């Protein structure tokens, strides 16, 4: 089947993508408005604890509280997106074995639902940033661009994970470890300036680091994202997305036998 053919089908199924995304959100928040607030209570508590611990270690950092909050929310997008994508195929066996729909739709709708959750969480963050820093910079207008780039990366990784998880059911445990170490390998609870210069080149290879910096630039500091960072992140997104699609397309032929 030609790739253009698949893309055409994905377009035909756009309403299904929207419906599945809505189901995903409804199930996540148990159909209640309060469900959403319960879900963000955790990260806010975590941010508070981390702020009190790390503000003593890095006392002179500017806007440290706001930066920790933005960093945690940005990390949550990646962690929640990839962790829930693991189950996007395996968790809906009847949609794989009993009916034909392009299987990428399942992974895409999971990723989209996480994008929406994440956007809502960032919106909740805005008044808090306003209180903490005394203003919202105009560069906030670039927020959708950063989020879209981030979404692209999360979707690319999700394609890998959701298709591999069908065959390797211990991937969730492995990915738990990756997520856990990633949290400390990204500048979330400590400022970037604490990384020794000799490690900086390797440290910045992590695209999440660059995305977190972009979020902080546009939401707190009021800087434009650097062109260099944009180029690195975009090339990362392209490579991960196409490699992920390739692996997914190869593996999806036997999904119905393995799910």
């Amino acid at each position, binding site marked *: 089947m030609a790739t253009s053919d698949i893309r055409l089908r994905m377009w035909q199924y756009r309403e299904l993508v929207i*419906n599945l995304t809505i189901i995903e959100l*409804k199930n996540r928040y148990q159909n209640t408005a309060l469900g959403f607030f319960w879900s963000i209570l955790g990260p806010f508590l975590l941010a508070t604890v981390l702020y009190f611990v790390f503000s003593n270690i890095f006392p002179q950092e500017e806007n440290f509280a706001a930066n920790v909050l933005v960093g945690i929310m940005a990390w949550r997008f990646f962690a929640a997106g990839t962790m829930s994508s693991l189950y996007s195929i395996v968790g809906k066996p009847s949609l794989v074995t009993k*009916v034909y729909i392009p299987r990428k739709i399942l992974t895409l709708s999971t990723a989209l639902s996480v994008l929406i959750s994440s956007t809502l969480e960032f919106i909740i963050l805005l008044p808090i940033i306003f209180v903490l820093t005394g203003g919202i910079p105009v560069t906030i207008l670039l927020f959708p661009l950063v989020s879209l780039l981030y979404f692209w990366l999360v979707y690319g990784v999700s394609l890998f994970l959701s298709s591999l998880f069908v065959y390797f059911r211990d991937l969730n445990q492995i990915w738990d470890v990756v997520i856990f170490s990633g949290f400390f390998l990204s500048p979330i609870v400590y400022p970037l300036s604490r990384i020794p210069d000799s490690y900086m080149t390797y440290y910045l290879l992590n695209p999440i680091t660059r995305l977190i910096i972009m979020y902080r630039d546009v939401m707190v500091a009021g800087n434009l994202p650097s062109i260099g960072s944009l180029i690195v992140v975009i090339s990362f997104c392209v490579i991960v997305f196409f490699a992920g699609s390739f692996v997914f397309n190869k593996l999806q032929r036997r999904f119905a036998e393995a799910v």
Partner: protein
Amino acid sequence: MDAIVVDNVSKKFKIPHEKKTTLFQNVVGLVRRQFAYEEFWALKGISFSVEQGEAFGIIGRNGSGKTTLLKILANVLYSESGSVTVNGRVAPFLELGVGFQPELTAAENVYIYCCILGMSNKEAKSKYDDIFGFAELRRFESMKLKNFSSGMYLRLAFSTAIHTNPDTLLIDEVLAVGDEAFQQKCRDKMQELKGQGKTMVFVSHALDAVESLCQRSLLLDEGRIISIGKTEEVIGDYLEMLRSEWPIVPSAPTLISPDDGATVYGTSVNFRWNPSDGATKYLLVVSTSPNFIQSKPRIFGEFVGNVLSHTVIGFPNDGTTYYWWVWGGNEAGITHHADTRANGRSFINGEAPTIPSAPTLISPDEGEQF
């Protein structure tokens, strides 16, 4: 015009000796060099075509590849080689209620199910009333699906699926679920859709259902086409195939037909039998002649396991005397022992069911308090 063209399709399953489902097991398997697997050809060189507006049956024993073939037609499984072309919108009835979410309401689920079956929201909206009307669930449209009974669930799912206006229906034994009234409704709807010129592929063990619905059929065994053509002839070949395997069993398990074996309830007939030693499956045969060799017996079902009764729905209510047998069988085949043959019991269909006595209310006084 051909609605479905299947050309030389083969499907192979690899069954590893050690099933590995985790990365850890794969690494261990790599170190220990465990790569051995069995090859299992579920389908081999299948070619046929189904015309637009035709109802086509697929019959065969358990494990003969019927469902695999249907899943390949539905594009759920990929074939190893060969090509499959299915024109138009396909409604796969491999399972009813695919993607139903228990936490959502019936109305929401109908929209999602329509969407999964390839309808737009707009189309779904225009069919909405028909769907709930046919399912007789109007009052429950805003109830959460988890509070539905299984019968309501099936009615809603079936009603949604047939209203998606498909060109081709792929049906896998869905009629084997639900109560008798529901099954009858399904059969009637199938006939109606057939009348509307829909293309149908129908997989079933119920040979009488296949015979009444399909003009042409295909007999599969061990993944190969044994015969293809007019349904009566293909069913004849199937019976012949089963019969040719009977003599393999040296001694017949003895069957006892109880006197009150067949009970007639209007157009439904209930058959019961006693278990026989060594039998792992039973075959129910009905004929109009006491000598089944001379007549054309109809096999009404093959039951694997300790099944000791069966109800045939929609039995012709024509006052004819029928004779019935139950044969026992095991892995090696089915017995046609002379004793078993002579054991045929007769019943006259068309007699009114006898009701022993009118039901009486236990305490009529309490009724008035209502």
